[in-house]
């Protein structure tokens, strides 16, 4: 199941019910075209030795760090996922801003036994943070500058931090993510 690329990031602002931990999403949106994605998971890494041997171990995922690489820095999108205020096109960043929880989906094209497949992956809860920033003047050698948005992987109350499914078409994989992030009917 070789991976042959990355496409179609989708995110949705998430609301967590403080009493039950239930998550509702506000509808899938595209932050930009997908350039890269990285995730490092943190694990409990707890071990218990007894009778001079390993008696118990727990490698449960407890969270993680993610990095979203995209081709653009759309101010409206970034204001939404970083919790900034936007008024008539102007974004104001304030130290009191709190980034909302978001669900994050992506599609990984695969080659399986000479067949194209598409794996949809949904991370139930993430929280992005301010990226570092730098600019360089244009030179004789072109370097296309893309954007990397760092974030945290959050573990939901029910423990279901990731969902994945493989589809025959990219459209079906995108529909799976869009459906999961659909806003509840009013």
């Amino acid at each position, binding site marked *: 199941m070789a991976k042959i*690329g*990355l*496409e*179609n990031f989708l995110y949705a602002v998430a609301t967590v019910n403080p009493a039950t931990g239930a998550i509702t999403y506000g509808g899938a949106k595209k932050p*930009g*075209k*997908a*350039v890269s994605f990285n995730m490092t998971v943190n694990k409990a890494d707890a071990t218990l030795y007894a009778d001079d041997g390993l008696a118990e171990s727990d490698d449960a995922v407890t969270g993680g760090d993610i990095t979203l690489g*995209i*081709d653009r820095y759309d101010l409206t999108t970034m204001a939404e996922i970083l919790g900034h205020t936007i008024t008539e096109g102007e974004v104001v960043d304030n130290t009191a801003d709190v980034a909302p929880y978001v669900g994050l989906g992506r599609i990984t*094209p695969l080659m399986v036994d000479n067949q194209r497949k598409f794996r949809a992956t949904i991370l139930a809860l993430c929280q992005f943070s301010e990226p570092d920033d730098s600019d360089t003047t*244009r030179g*004789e*050698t*072109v*370097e*296309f500058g*893309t954007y990397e948005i760092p974030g945290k992987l959050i573990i939901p109350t029910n423990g279901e931090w990731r969902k994945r499914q493989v589809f025959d078409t990219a459209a079906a994989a995108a529909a799976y993510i869009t459906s999961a992030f659909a806003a509840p009917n009013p």
Partner: protein
Amino acid sequence: MTENINEIIESTFNGFSVGGTEIPVRFMYYFGHGEPYVVYSQADADSSLSGDNELLAYAEYYDFDVYSKGNFLPIVEAVKAKLIAAGFFFEPSRSSEDMYEPDTGYFHKTLNFQYLKGV
């Protein structure tokens, strides 16, 4: 819609003249007679940007060859000024030194420019 760089070049050099002399600027080859003249062609391309598993943009490089039997330096500067104003980026390290061709009597200089092209 994808940009046609040749159309941009043709438009940029429509009625091009230096010091009162009209200078034809043609793609690949100049079939006319007399001088000075300029021919251009795509040299190569690199530095691609991809996203969503598709090519989004890349850099194309164009050579502009200036031919003249007289002082070609004002023409070189005029070509550079026109193309920079049109959004091209001059590439000194990809351009040639000053050349003279004894068999034809032409002074010749190749100027290279970069153009960022979205897909």
